[in-house]
């Protein structure tokens, strides 16, 4: 099965966090738990777990007979070592766990204990991207002289093109500037669909003409999700090729308003902008089939509050809000800069729409195309941050708290996650309290209350939840189509929502065509 992806991507679970890397890691490795199709946390490598009453220690029991790709059987020591590596390196998605995990030890061959520094209610679901490495194999490939003492480089160099996992697929070959080739791990404990591919290629290209040609020549079984609407419309005309979308179930697109910078330091100005924006045109014309966000959290995330106020375009109300602000008489003196990411050309469309809408109520917005590296740098200082940043953000684990804490807690105030610079200690305390709450239902209720408070402050324009269209030939059955929940018929194909890996779990694909691979 051949698929296209943007380059570069990484297969070290402590490095990559982008979509391609996450997909590769998900298929090469296993985690203690998994998120099922409905968004629930289920046991995976672990058969069960329990926690202490105070939520400071967690014990996980490991299933027997899980084999790594080299045949070695997984045990608790592999998990303890992997967690130690994960939090020591501190890169990739480790930021989710490093503030909370003190250490991990193997109590015996089948039980691993995690001790936390402080209570972390979502700890179990936050393990969804903590992948387990083969300790013995890694120890053979440590590079001496690295910065981690006796652990050398912790195997980072070796893991750039090799894997130490137990996942459904293993690395056959990885040329970082071309493609990753994976083959089935025949002893995989999770099993395979009957027609699942024996070999999977993640090919590093998203070039429109290349993808279209490959689909037409039956040289591609599923495209990447970076194709433009124009190219997808052309692809749709190819006989024997279908298109379907998966809905983003973890994040959304925001216009992040710097609440410390005039005139956005006035909540009435922010609300005026929220009222003047044409969400309908955004979600039907500019980004067809997307869904307007309802508050700061994705509608599919556990803990989402469906009762928060949702802004809709209303110029009358926008002007009324502006009239209440302290800048009512001199708003035209301010030029508001909106920085959008140069590497995502589609953002210009949303930016221009916002600029046009703001002009209707007399607010001057300047749309500025900015390279991503500059946006990251600008966000690090109150002085250099622009008025507005146009960025998408997603949860790291399937709970509203993951998105809330990254988007609105003060510790993120000088990062690209939060151009708003809220620096609101009341909200900080509420979010910290929610994350410390061990009881699930109580925690969800707290998330919902926080969302209400955030919407009242109106620090962001909550734009839309994206969808990802992919094209595939008729002989391919895609997991998010087969197992996902049908949402609606889009302009190019059906739209489905699917939790877990985003529908790119290769062992669940069905490819009803024989392609000879001799590599």
């Amino acid at each position, binding site marked *: 099965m051949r698929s296209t992806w943007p380059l570069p991507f990484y297969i070290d679970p402590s490095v990559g966090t982008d979509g391609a890397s996450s997909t590769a890691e998900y298929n090469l490795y296993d985690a203690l738990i998994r998120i099922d199709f409905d968004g629930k946390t289920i046991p995976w490598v672990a058969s069960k777990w329990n926690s202490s009453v105070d939520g400071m220690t967690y014990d996980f029991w490991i299933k027997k007979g899980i084999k790594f790709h080299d045949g070695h059987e997984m045990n608790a020591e592999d998990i303890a070592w992997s967690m130690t590596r994960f939090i020591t390196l501190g890169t990739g998605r480790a930021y989710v766990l490093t503030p909370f995990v003190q250490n991990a030890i193997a109590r015996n061959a089948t039980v691993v204990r995690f001790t936390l520094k402080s209570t972390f209610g979502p700890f179990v679901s936050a393990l969804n991207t903590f992948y387990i490495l083969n300790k013995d194999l890694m120890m053979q490939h440590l590079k001496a002289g690295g910065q981690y003492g006796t652990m050398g480089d912790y195997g980072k160099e070796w893991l750039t093109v090799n894997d130490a996992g137990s996942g459904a697929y293993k690395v056959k070959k990885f040329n*970082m500037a071309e493609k990753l080739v994976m083959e089935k791990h025949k002893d995989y404990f999770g099993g395979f669909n009957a027609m699942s591919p024996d070999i999977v290629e993640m090919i590093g*290209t998203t070039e429109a003409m290349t993808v279209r040609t490959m689909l037409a020549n039956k040289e591609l079984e599923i495209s990447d999700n970076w194709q433009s609407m124009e190219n997808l419309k052309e692809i749709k005309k190819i006989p024997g090729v279908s298109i379907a979308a998966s809905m983003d179930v973890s994040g959304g697109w925001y216009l992040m308003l710097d609440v410390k910078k005039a005139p956005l330091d006035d909540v009435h100005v922010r609300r005026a902008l929220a009222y003047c924006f044409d969400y309908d045109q955004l979600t039907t014309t500019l980004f067809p089939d997307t869904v307007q966000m309802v508050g700061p959290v994705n509608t599919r995330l556990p803990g989402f509050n469906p009762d928060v106020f949702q802004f809709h375009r209303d110029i009358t109300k926008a002007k009324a809000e502006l009239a209440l602000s302290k800048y009512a008489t001199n708003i035209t003196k301010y030029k508001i800069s909106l920085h959008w990411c140069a590497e995502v050309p589609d953002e210009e469309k949303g930016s221009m729409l916002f600029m046009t809408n703001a002009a209707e109520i007399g607010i001057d917005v300047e749309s500025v195309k900015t390279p991503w590296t500059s946006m990251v740098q600008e966000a*690090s200082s109150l002085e250099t941050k622009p008025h507005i940043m146009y960025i998408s953000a997603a949860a790291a684990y399937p709970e509203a708290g993951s998105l809330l804490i990254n988007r609105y807690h003060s510790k993120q105030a000088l990062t690209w996650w939060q151009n708003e610079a809220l620096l609101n200690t009341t909200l900080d305390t509420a979010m910290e309290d929610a994350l410390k709450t061990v009881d699930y239902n109580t925690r969800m209720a707290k998330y919902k209350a926080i969302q209400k408070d955030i919407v009242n402050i109106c620090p962001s324009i909550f734009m839309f939840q994206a969808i990802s269209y992919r094209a595939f030939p008729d002989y391919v059955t895609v997991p998010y189509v087969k197992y996902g929940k049908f949402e609606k018929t889009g302009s190019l194909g059906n739209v489905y929502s699917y939790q877990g890996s985003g529908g790119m779990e290769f062992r669940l694909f069905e490819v009803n065509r024989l392609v000879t691979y001799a590599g």
Partner: protein
Amino acid sequence: MYIGRRLVLSVFVLLGLSIFIFTLSRVIPGDPARLSLGPMAPQWAVDQLRERLHLNEPLPVQYVIWLTNAIHGDFGESIVTKRPVILDVITFFPASLELVLLSTIVSTVLAIVIGAISGRRANSWFDNAFRLFSYIGIAVPTFVWAIMALFLFGYVWKILPTMGQLSTNIAPPPTITGMMGLDALLTGNITAFLDHFRYMLMPAFAMSIGRIAQEARILRSGFIENLKKDYITAEVSYGIPERSITFKYLMKPSLIPMISILGMDIAASMGGSFIIETIFNWPGFGRYGMWAMLNKDLNAIIAVVVIIGAFFAISNIVVDLIIASVDPRIRMMERGA
């Protein structure tokens, strides 16, 4: 002695180039440590990496550290690939070199044939057609040729593969030089060689169009210029056959300016290969260099620029040697010097 002199001069050029690009790369906005570790990495990890990369040292100190390591073949670690830059160079450079060599062979042979005919038959229908082609060939950017080739040969006619290096049903040859075609030949795997050659055709063709147009034009001009010379008139009046005049007496002096340009074209092809490699998913050095620039991968940026600079210097030395072998006047001048 000539080669020695040129090599010594090249070292100074490369030093200057490295200082320039080293300084420039540190002026570009963005913290390389933060970019490498990602926006969510803890500050202590970023600070630690900054220390390891010596980013807190003064710029001259950073340069001296880099130069000392580079002399020993250690270009540091790439923040994009997360491994030593020298490994990346060994992996990606041969793939680009292979494409550049094939496009050079194609463009040189065709430029000589077309330029000679055009020069010898100035103002004929062939010459007029070639001159039109040369304007288009030089004006149209390489990526346009690449996309057109992809569209025609890959999409419409389906006669050539669209991307990659080898068909899935053919086992790749073992890596010896890193150039898959050469490795296939060295291991006697003709099937893999021929299949790989098919994959090279489109990218090499796209790379060579502009060069054919330019080099053939220069050769044509050389022919027209030398045709006016007295010695040619004398040879014609002696009854020397046209073929001998063309290939023995006209070709050599006319080739010299074309060969000079050839050296620059080869180096330019290496530097500008990223767009071809991106379109055809060719795992080459140009693409790697583009990642380095976009991600502010300081170590990789300097390595890429210095290596392409060295390639430029070496290719020009080789070209000068070829010119010296073609033109005896230059050999005599060197001996006199």
